[in-house]
């Protein structure tokens, strides 16, 4: 059975629901005072995990589409990817507004001095550039460069799990599970013989960014 564009519409609706319900749940928890003794930490953790879950889901789509030969499924990647951005934005916003209470100097201080926050910030900036360029019109204009940039999602995944692992005091099971999931998802892609192309693209992207950095200096 092939996915039709009609069923794709409903599938997208379901994905939206899955993306939105946890936010409603979080709001309910916070408003009814059931988000633990420190709701700020709860919100930051909740939205961070939400972003990671959505990221894992994004990376699951193309292996599933290939395996079940459902090409249309690929069209849901942008939707899910934008939920990664939405949750990550809430995560950053919660850290900045509720934890640091808009203390700009402390914000920059923390980002620069704390390696795990720096890694998270790098992931977020890259993620934002993917979100901004996700419009079809921009995608057409960018041509081949678009794919190079959007392969950055793998780098975002790597940075995100490092950020999580590094941020915990010692409770490493949960971040380790995400690292494992990411390794499997990246491994699937390597198995498909794309290893060389992905690494070379990542390398190009890296060189591209360092070159730009040098030229802007």
């Amino acid at each position, binding site marked *: 059975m092939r996915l039709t564009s009609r069923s794709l519409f409903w599938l997208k609706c379901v994905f939206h629901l899955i993306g939105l319900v946890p936010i409603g749940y979080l709001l309910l928890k*916070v408003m009814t005072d059931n988000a633990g*003794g420190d709701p700020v930490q709860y919100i930051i953790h909740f939205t961070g995990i939400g972003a990671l879950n959505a990221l894992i889901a994004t990376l699951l789509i193309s292996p599933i589409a290939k395996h079940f030969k459902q090409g249309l499924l690929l069209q849901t990647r942008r939707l899910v990817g934008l939920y990664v951005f939405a949750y990550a934005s809430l995560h950053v916003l919660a850290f900045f507004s509720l934890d640091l209470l808009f203390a700009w100097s402390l914000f920059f201080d923390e980002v620069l001095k704390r390696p795990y926050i720096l890694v998270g910030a790098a992931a977020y900036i890259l993620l934002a550039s993917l979100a901004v360029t996700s419009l079809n019109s921009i995608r057409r204009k960018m041509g081949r460069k678009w794919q190079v940039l959007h392969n950055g999602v793998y780098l975002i995944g790597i940075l995100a799990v490092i950020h999580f692992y590094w941020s915990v005091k010692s409770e490493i099971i949960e971040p380790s599970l995400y690292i494992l999931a990411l390794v499997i998802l990246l491994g699937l892609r390597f198995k498909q013989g794309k290893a060389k192309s992905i690494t070379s693209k990542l390398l190009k992207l890296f060189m591209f960014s360092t070159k730009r950095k040098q030229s802007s200096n």
Partner: protein
Amino acid sequence: MNIKKTAAWDKFKDSDITPEEVYRDRRRILKQMGFVGAGALLSSHANAGVFDLFSDDKKKAAFLTQTLPFAKQAQYDHLLYGSLTPESKIISHNNFYEFGTSKTDPEENAQGLKVDPWKLVIDGEVDNPMTLDYDDLLKLFPLQERAYNFRCVEAWSMVIPWVGFSLASLLKKVGVNSNAKYVAFETLYDPEQMPGQRSRYAGGGINYPYVEGLTLAEAMNDLTFMSVGLYGKTLPPQNGAPIRLVVPWKYGFKSIKSVVRIRLTDKQPPTSWNQLAASEYGFYANVNPDVDHPRWSQASERRIAEGGLFSAKRIPTLPFNGYGDIVADLYKDMDLKKFY
């Protein structure tokens, strides 16, 4: 010995503190609506960490606390900065890795802890080794209530009204001999009751039993407190029932919970977080805004106080958590950047 609330207390109306019934009722209502259950399915990870995967859904009956007789001791109240943290927050936001690594795990998983019978052994370099049972903990010394600032190494803080007695009074009773230089503490080891102790990873990598230590001078300081209660009642398990240490000028992890052994030693005892990551957690662990944790700043803290989400405050952290006048002398010849 019921003494009228005075001075600093009078700032707080009874309505400032959410009554336990109201607090518990909210949960019940929410549960009836099915939100907790449905939500847990959607985000079991975000909800409370991997520990949820192992714990059954049925919530155990809440641990029963009892009212304690005590005398209010207000002599340190002028060092408090901020009003008391509501009881509902103190008992629902805990680090007690023996019951899981998420802040909400201890309240979920610790309610069944058996605290009576209990044995607290005091031995080592003492004249009269003693073993206290549960009743001794509550009755051997006249109980005092003291409110202290409480600062976690994770940069959040509370103000907590503890009930207990000074460690010094206990040490005087057993008679510390001249060989003693340090005091070592140990938490109950009982993997049957403490799921975090069943596997090193489930318990956050700590090598159980949890151990802590103080120098003898620190232990003899009047601030150093053995707590058996909070908010006028015996401690709930998540806060370290039936007896815990409270050292208000040090990061919270020094204030070891559910203590079964206090041993006087001539050598510096090992301490759990120091064993786990010596570069991040020192033996002294005095609250110090000038010495950052390698992975985050200690210059300020987020105060967990009354009110909802948007009443959160970030306040500057004080050296020795505000108790410098009393304890700074203990460290006058010490480089606190080196001995963090």
